[in-house]
């Protein structure tokens, strides 16, 4: 099939039926005011700021954006990826140019109900191709050549702290990096084994304020761990009725604990989760579908639970990753480090649709996609539109996707 035939065929395929109002016909350019799909916002009570929960999902390793939200009708996509391009039957059309990898099908109801925003071309100027440096940039919301040590949530909470009686300011689930919730202004609890809460509760109460930074860290962690354990143990997480089967993989288990925290109204404003293994230099045809399936199934179970229990309006889910992957596939069944990629925002108060625009495949810089949205515009969305904070350290505008 040559290019012309392909385009004709692609254009002839019917669009998936979506609520007309949710379709964004024109794409946003850079930080212009976004075209907001005129989807009806769900009615909701105006909740207190810290009743809202941000659930961060890190796609660790650099997710291949082009095989996640697929520019299926772009002939360049198929030219650049002779073996990695998804066949038409493996793409769920969202509009005339873009579609979901079919493994994201569990998220389709959310998209159709206009509660899933897809931010396109998310990246930053002067992209770094090192996993470690690039995730530091994302975690701290720094510039490409700026070296910071505070996670962006900690920087944000310097402006306003959640109440001291909360279990913690952030909970990290699983054996994952604490990146965005690391810092001086934040009490972060790592929870990968709820049984340890009982041990934590029994640790001794300590005086604070130590001059020795290492000792201050230890006494701080001990104090935070005792406090988080006391508050969370009272919620009896193991007894919370979820009514949903969660996938048994690591991410599914994280989403189950996240659901228990939220459904039990455990006072925690940030929950950080992660899926590892997105660094698909080789073996991508096997690994990437598994990763996306894990993501979609875990998120779908979470959404179903939290919705059914009436907490969906106080939840905002946001994905992120250190970078996307190179448009041109490599010679070892994979793709190498790239730049921008799409990311998802979901929640009862999210106005669904596309934000930003898909970076064109015929306009690459050093073999990689130009970014269209700064990743900090996602943070601005959470900081300003979700929590109503000023977030002066973020210069970018939010997406305007929170009702």
């Amino acid at each position, binding site marked *: 099939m040559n290019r012309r035939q392909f385009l004709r065929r692609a254009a002839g395929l019917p669009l998936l039926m979506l609520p007309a109002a949710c379709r964004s016909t024109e794409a946003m350019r850079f930080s212009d005011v976004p075209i907001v799909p005129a989807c009806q916002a769900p009615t909701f009570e105006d909740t207190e700021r810290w009743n809202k929960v941000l659930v961060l999902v890190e796609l660790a390793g650099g997710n291949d954006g082009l095989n996640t939200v697929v520019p299926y009708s772009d002939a360049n996509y198929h030219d650049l990826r002779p073996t990695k391009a998804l066949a038409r039957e493996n793409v769920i059309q969202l509009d005339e140019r873009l579609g979901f990898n079919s493994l994201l099908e569990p998220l389709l109801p959310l998209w159709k109900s206009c509660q899933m925003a897809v931010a396109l071309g998310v990246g930053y100027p002067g992209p770094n191709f090192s*996993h470690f440096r690039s995730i530091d940039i994302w975690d701290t919301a720094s510039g490409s050549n700026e070296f910071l040590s505070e996670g962006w949530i900690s920087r944000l909470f310097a402006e306003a702290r959640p109440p001291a009686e909360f279990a913690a300011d952030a909970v990290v689930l699983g054996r994952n990096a604490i990146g965005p919730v690391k810092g001086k202004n934040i009490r972060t609890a790592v929870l990968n084994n709820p049984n340890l809460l009982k*041990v934590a509760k029994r*640790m001794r109460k300590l*005086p604070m304020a130590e001059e020795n930074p290492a000792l201050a860290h230890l006494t701080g*962690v*001990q104090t935070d*761990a005792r406090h988080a354990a006391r508050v969370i143990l009272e919620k009896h997480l193991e007894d919370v009725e979820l009514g949903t089967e969660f996938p048994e993989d690591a991410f599914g288990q994280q989403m189950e604990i996240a659901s228990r925290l939220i459904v039990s109204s455990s006072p925690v404003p940030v929950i950080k989760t992660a899926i590892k293994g997105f660094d698909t*230099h080789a073996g991508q045809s096997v690994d990437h579908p598994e990763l996306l399936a894990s993501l979609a199934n875990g998120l779908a179970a979470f959404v179903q639970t939290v919705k059914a229990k009436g907490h969906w309006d106080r939840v905002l889910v946001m994905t992120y990753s250190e970078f996307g992957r190179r448009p041109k596939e490599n*010679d*070892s069944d994979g793709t190498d480090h790239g730049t921008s990629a799409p990311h998802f925002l979901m929640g009862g108060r999210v106005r669904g649709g596309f934000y930003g625009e898909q970076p064109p495949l015929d306009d690459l810089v050093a073999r990689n996609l130009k970014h269209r949205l700064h990743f900090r515009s996602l943070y601005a969305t959470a900081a300003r539109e979700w929590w109503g904070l000023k977030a002066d350290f973020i210069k970018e505008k939010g997406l305007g996707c929170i009702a």
Partner: protein
Amino acid sequence: MSKTRVVSFLAALIFALPAGAVPFEEARHLLARTGFGIARAAEVAALQQLDYEAAVDRVLGGVRTQPATSPPPWIDELPPTSKEMKAMTAAQRVEFNKATRTRWQPLKQWWAGEMLATPSPLTEHLVVFWHNHFVSEVKKVKWAGYMYGQNALFRHHALGNFATLLRGMAKGPAMLIYLDGRTNRKGRPNENFAREIMELFTLGEGRGYSEDDIVEAARAFTGWSINPAKGTFVFDPKRHDDGTKSFLGRQGRFSGDDVIDILLEEPRVAEFITEKLWREFVSAEPEPGQVSRLAAAFRNSGYELRPLMKGLLTTPQFRAADNPGTMIKSPVDLVVGTLRVLGNPGLEPRNVTSFQRRLGQDLFQPPNVKGWPGGEAWVTTNTLPLRHQFLNRVARGGTMNVAMPDGGDEDLMELLLAVAPVTPPEETARSRQRLALLLLDPSFQLK
């Protein structure tokens, strides 16, 4: 030990001690930092007989090039060749893969045993340091014997020559598998190793090289592979791209060896390694003046590690009276060090490696090519209760006898803690209870 007592002790250190003799606190500090965060009373006492420089020489002189214990008997076996693999049935291959994985645990347990048994804790501390610098990981490498080979290389050169170690590491089967070097060939370059040798092994992220240098270095490393009949490095000229490369501002038909030679000419390498060793042994904040002095000497010596280590351990920053107790023990420090000093309360080797893994330091399986970040990241609201679980077990002693350190209670506290406890145990507490209180005090987590 009250703070006043520490201060008066330090005053005594400066004014009252006979010239030459190393005071208890400083001997303990030297051993704790070079070893597993703590030391046995007899080891401390032995150093107190010497002057400080001689004490440092004694610790460095004890470093070994061979393990003290025997590795598993199958360690020298070679993996089947690809021809042999192809001859296997699907069921045989499944069986083979399973058998391969069953060797990972014995390998980890052997290393844990070596750490518990070694007469030179510094040797194993350095092997962990190099493992965390030149990272490989058994889940990707798969063949336990190759991981052991790399571990043996780290031990052989632990305090030898960095350039020799770098070259040996680059050509080791574990690294050729872990960073895809063996699949890197002409026309199909794989940048994985080329990127990390600059970013993580020699120069540091973004320090003096570009993305183009990575691409060009990857071409130079093409043709590097493993001889399956010997389990050693082999160069395959047919797979090598011998065209002209442009690397760090120079042009030539560079080989992989040439790239390593060019890298070793960069002054940044000595600084990078000196800074990293400083963070491991001296403090979280390298002092720039000392680093440039030590790095210059390191480079001029042709990258000899022993004089560099001696330089680090004799800096005023290492010896500063307020330096002990400013670093956080790693999981290996906490588990191995505590068991070495207090005896084993009936933990099997698999319990030892299991505690290390759950505390976040699964040896032979670092989280990624950058290794464990260490420092404050070791202690979270998850790992601190786990640390307490382990220490409770040691304090209770199980059914086995936990050796109480010799001497009275004051000696016990001085031996166990680098700084005064946050909550000093009551004088009336019985000795085992006192031991538990000291082990569970935050100060016990420090070195």
